[in-house]
């Protein structure tokens, strides 16, 4: 890596070599001196903000609202809903689905999502 202090264009002269050596030695000493964790990580994890907890009533309320919306749609447009359901049944019954096949597709999708997330976060170099 072309480090900043190795840059040949850096405006320094050979007369300043002693300072470069001094700073390089100090920097190297710092890099070599590993600071023991000594409970630091535990303190950080303890101080992390608590995960945002959703209220317990949220899920049943959301499910009830979706159910109400579906019922309202069915009551408002019964013929449309019936047509959609009939067509969906026709399509699904024509396909040779199996439980194992569905499982494999789901597993592949999950692996793909995780792989994409890991790749996108991969460090440079």
């Amino acid at each position: 890596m072309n480090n900043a202090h190795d840059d040949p264009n850096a405006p320094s002269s050979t007369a300043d070599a002693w300072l470069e050596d001094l700073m390089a030695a100090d920097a190297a000493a710092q890099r070599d001196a590993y600071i023991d964790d000594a409970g630091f990580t535990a303190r950080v994890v303890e101080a992390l903000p608590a995960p945002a907890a959703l209220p317990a009533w949220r899920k049943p309320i959301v499910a009830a609202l979706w159910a109400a919306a579906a019922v309202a749609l069915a009551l408002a447009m019964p013929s449309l809903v019936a047509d959609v359901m009939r067509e969906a049944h026709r399509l699904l019954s024509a396909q040779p689905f199996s439980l194992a096949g569905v499982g494999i597709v789901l597993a592949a999708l999950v692996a793909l999502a995780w792989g994409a997330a890991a790749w996108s976060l991969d460090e440079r170099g």
Partner: protein
Amino acid sequence: MAEPSTTDAPLIARALLTDDRHAFAELVKRHQSSVRACLRKLTAGNHALADDLAQETFILAWRNLASFRQEARFSTWLYRIATNCWLAHNRKRREELLGDRVDTLAEDDDTMPHIDDMQSDHARGTTLRVDLERAMAALSEAERAAIVQCYHNDLTHEEAAYVLDCPIGTVKTHVLRGKQKLKAALSAYAR
């Protein structure tokens, strides 16, 4: 210094996607030494303050993990947060001091010694490292930050510019001015 055996990416993904605190703890373990060492340099050897700022750095990293992009290494991103924490701390302290006594505000850091003290300490035979640390403390915030990033954190000028959020030319200027001040303060060591 212990180098991470594998890339940080899987741990970041776990922490981000599943709110996995164990994965984040592993990231903290990997980088705590370098972040704390960087802050110890920036705070001129104030270990307690450096550790407080390091803790703040990792908590901010946890909160903002979703904003981390691969424009920089994870360690460089942490250095950026750490440097901002240090600058924010100094700013807050300056405001507090200004509120108390404007006339006595000579420098921006309570750990910053005067050149006279440095020379008298040197006369008493303190070590080269202590002298260097004190000379570093006498630099301006920007000069000290630039030198710490370029020398102690071993970053390129480009990476240091990312950490300090300024143009590369500004980084080079700060490094040059800082080195000139160090040269003057440490001239006794010139061979």
